[in-house]
Structure formats: C-alpha cells, structure tokens
C-alpha cells in the first residue's frame, strides 16, 4: 500500500516536471484558434446578405376623381368643392373651388414644399375638409414632384389624397 502511494507520488512529480510554469511561457506561443469563428462568420454573412433589404419600398395610396373612376358619382347633388393643391411649372397653388387661396412661387427651380406644408396646416384649421385633399398637376411636371406634394399633404394632416389633372390656370399667381 505504502509502495503504491510512493509510485503514485512519483508519477505526479513526473507530470509536474513536464508542465511549464506560467513564467516560462513565451508570449509568441499563445495563439487563439479563430478558424471556427471565421467559419461561423462566413455562414452568417452569406445568410444575412440573402435576407438583407438595401432599399426599402413602400406604396402611396390615392384616389382618382369620381368622373375618372369607374364608380361614377350618380347623385345629382352638386359636389362640395375640395381643397386642391395645384402644381404648376412656376408656382404651387392652394385652390378651393375657383378661388386661388395661396400661391407659392418656384424660386431657382426649387418648389416651396416647406411653405406649402405650413399653409396647408393653416387652411385645414380654418375649415373642416374632412381630411380630404386633391393634388392636381399640369402635364409637364415630373412625377417625383407629384409624389412629394402628396407626401406634404399627408404630413399636413390630410389622410385622403386624390390625384387629378390640373385644368386651365384658375388665376395668375399673385
């Protein structure tokens, strides 16, 4: 029994003598094996690229005027005039019926969208338009301007935006 314990001690001593003490470890020998981490990264990157969205798409909803829409207005009652934003080449106008309420001139090819939003907010507080507005544009205007104007109308609190073609100039810009 005593002999065995001695042998055991001998083995332990031997194993201790093989293990280098921390002070003996040279800095250069410590190397992290990052290969499995890289493997995971490569798999993850491929998966994420396949599921990534680089341009977020959305939809803009609008209605057409009743005489254009297939569901034509059959009632004989005269329709209530709606607040309309007119997009012209030289100005943005806020029109109600035949009256041009506001005219915001285009300066240096820049449409005054900021002023339009504030004017629309004022006009909507003056009268209850039930959140309805019509955007009417002349033929030459780029489509992006029409979309931007519809955005401004929604931001000003008009939920139902209609799209229409602008008729003859209701009034020259003031």
């Amino acid at each position, binding site marked *: 029994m005593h002999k065995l314990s001695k042998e055991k001690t001998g083995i332990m001593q031997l194993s201790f003598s093989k293990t280098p003490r921390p002070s003996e470890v040279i800095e250069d020998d410590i190397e992290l094996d990052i290969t499995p981490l*890289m493997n995971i990264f490569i798999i993850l990157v491929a998966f*994420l690229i396949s*599921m990534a969205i680089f*341009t977020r*798409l*959305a939809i803009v909803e609008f209605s057409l005027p009743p005489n*254009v829409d297939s569901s034509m207005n059959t009632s004989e009652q005269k329709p209530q005039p709606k607040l309309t934003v007119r997009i012209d080449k030289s100005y943005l106008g806020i029109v109600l019926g035949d009256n041009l309420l506001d005219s915001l001139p285009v300066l240096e090819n820049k449409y005054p969208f900021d002023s339009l939003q504030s004017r629309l907010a004022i006009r909507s507080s003056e009268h209850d338009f039930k959140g309805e507005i019509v955007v009417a544009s*002349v033929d030459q205007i780029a*489509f992006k301007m029409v*979309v931007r104007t519809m955005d401004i109308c929604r931001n000003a609190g008009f939920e139902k935006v209609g799209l229409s073609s602008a008729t003859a100039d209701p009034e020259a810009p003031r």
Partner: protein
Amino acid sequence: MKTRDLHKGLSKGGVFRPQLTSLVDIMVILLFFLIQSFSIEGNLVTASADLELPVSSADKNPQPFCALHITKKQVLVDDIITVTNDKILSAEDFLIPELFKMMKAQKAKNTDPASKGKLLIQADKEIPFAIVKKVMYTCSKAGFEDFKVLVVQEE
C-alpha cells in the same frame, strides 16, 4: 526590416500563419451592417431595374398586386412592352387602345378577390405627369379602381 516583415507570419516550425485579426474586424463590421438591414419578411415586390422610383415618406408595405411599369421610354405590363412613351405623349385621346386591351385581359385573368381591381404602378421619377395621367385613365376604364404607386422609402 523588410525581411523581418516578410517572416512575421512564419511560426517556429516554418508554417505560414496569416494574421486574421484585420479580417475578423472587417467581418464584425459587415455583420453589424447586415443585421441592421435584415428583414424576416423580405421584399414582396421588387422594383424594376430600368426605372428610378420616386422617394416618399410613405411607410405602407407593398403587396404583390397586378403591376404596371412606366419606364423612361415605354409602358410594360407583365414585362411585355405595351406602348412607348412617345406614342402616349403624341396621342390626343386620353385612352390608349393598346394598353386598354392589355389591362382588360389582366383584369379578366386575375380571379383573386383580394387583389381584383387593384393596380400597383411603378413609374420612373422623371417621367412627365401627362403619361401617368393617361395610363391611369386607361386603366380605370379597363376596370381598375384601386391605384397604388411604388416608391422608395425615405431614410
């Protein structure tokens, strides 16, 4: 000095071990960027490559309805060139016969009640409103009532 740099990746046994630290850094940055733009749903609608969509603050998710593309040069329905923009602009009438015929067929083909009468328009941001107006008029005459425009969401 140059010789030392060349032998930097060599271990004692002479085996070349590349320095992976910078690669791991790039991978981590890439991973963060991709996680940020990750979406479980994905895009149900893909924008056409030959047109630039207008930018908008709208946030409603697009649904795969019947799609009509208005590029810089032509109008496409189901990826088939239906009519050119020049022809639309030169026409005096609002109704475009070629498009009307095509859209009528599209309306008849769609039997799904959830998307019937709904049209998703993909229009280039620079095209004049006159083209959009005539296209929408023709589509409404063909039986489409609910119009939606595809846009790129503002960041």
